């Protein structure tokens, strides 16, 4: 169950500069836990105690997980989970 996670620029300080990382997980929540294990500090940037932070967008392949099953959205081998940053700057 290898999932490719695309990391936005402002979070790459937590992934040694990598823009993509491979982790295992059958659901988005499991992938985030695996991310946290490999790159401590990432989970807190993505989630708060109510779930995905309101300004964070997670895409399972092309679809926002808010319109799927949220953190329970299933992922299959070879899928991509993208972390999309807010637009910043003038």
């Amino acid at each position, binding site marked *: 169950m290898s999932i490719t996670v695309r990391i936005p620029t402002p979070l790459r300080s937590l992934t040694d500069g990598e823009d993509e990382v491979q982790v295992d997980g059958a659901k988005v929540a499991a992938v985030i836990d695996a991310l946290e294990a490999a790159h401590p500090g990432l989970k807190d940037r993505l989630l708060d105690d109510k779930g995905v932070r309101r300004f964070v967008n997670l895409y399972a392949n*092309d679809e926002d997980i808010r319109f799927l099953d949220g953190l329970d959205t299933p992922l299959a081998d070879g899928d991509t989970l993208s972390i999309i940053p807010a637009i910043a700057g003038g």
Partner: protein
Amino acid sequence: MRHRRIESIVDAVGHTPMVRLRSLERETPEVQIYLKLEYANPGGSVKDRPARQMMLDAIADGRLTKDRVLIDSTSGNTGVAYSLFGAALGYRVQLVMPENVSQARKDITRAYGTELVFSDPMEGSDGAIRHCKALVEAEPERYFYPDQYANPSNPKAHFLGTGAEILEQVGDRITHFVTGLGTSGTMMGTTRRLKQHSRPITCVAVEPAQPFHGLEGLKHMGSSIVPPIFDAGLPDEILPVETEDGWDMSDRIAADEGLHVGHSTGANVFGALTLAKRIGRGCVVTLAPDRGDRYFAPQRWEKHYEW
């Protein structure tokens, strides 16, 4: 000034109203809090000021001519302003923006006849800057590149406009000025003007507390390409604000003050209230860069992204 008759929409920039935030003042009875409504500019945001100044200065000294295309990277509001003045003054405009800016932003700028170029959404505004620079370097003779992050006309607009207007409006009472950092033009120019005032005014810069944030228009300087116009020595203090606090404050002042503003305004007002509670006595002024209706989320059937 705002009721005057004008010859061109270009002349409608500035002289924005300032409103007192009485619902917030209940938490800080000895401090007045004022919000200057930059969304009252004709393009709907504070960015009308620097865009107008950069274009007029460039037209005056020949950097912008009718046979060149104005190109810049922008997440939206500056692009709206360039597009508006480009249409009004008769200049072509091309904008580079991350592909994940809202459809509304794309539609607004296109309505003025502007051409859009998209950069990688994973790279944010820094990716748009790099993409824009590459286009200009490939064909330098084709473009006028104002580069709002490096153009001294950007802070100059706020020195001549925003700062001077604040002193006209509350020069007799202002003790503190607070605003967020994006290009830093607002902070730099306004602060330089306020520091010339006869009484001391403390100027505080709000910035996102985290590199990965949701305060559109603002920059976390420590993790970003630092704008050449930014002078870190100018603000008296940098005040970090969490995204959630800015968002919640936007909701609150819409409900309590009738001010439906963008998230950067929420961050500014949260910063102003934080400061007001700390100082206990005085007058804090901050800005509302734009309205909340620039940020309505797309409907589900519009929300499909391709890479």
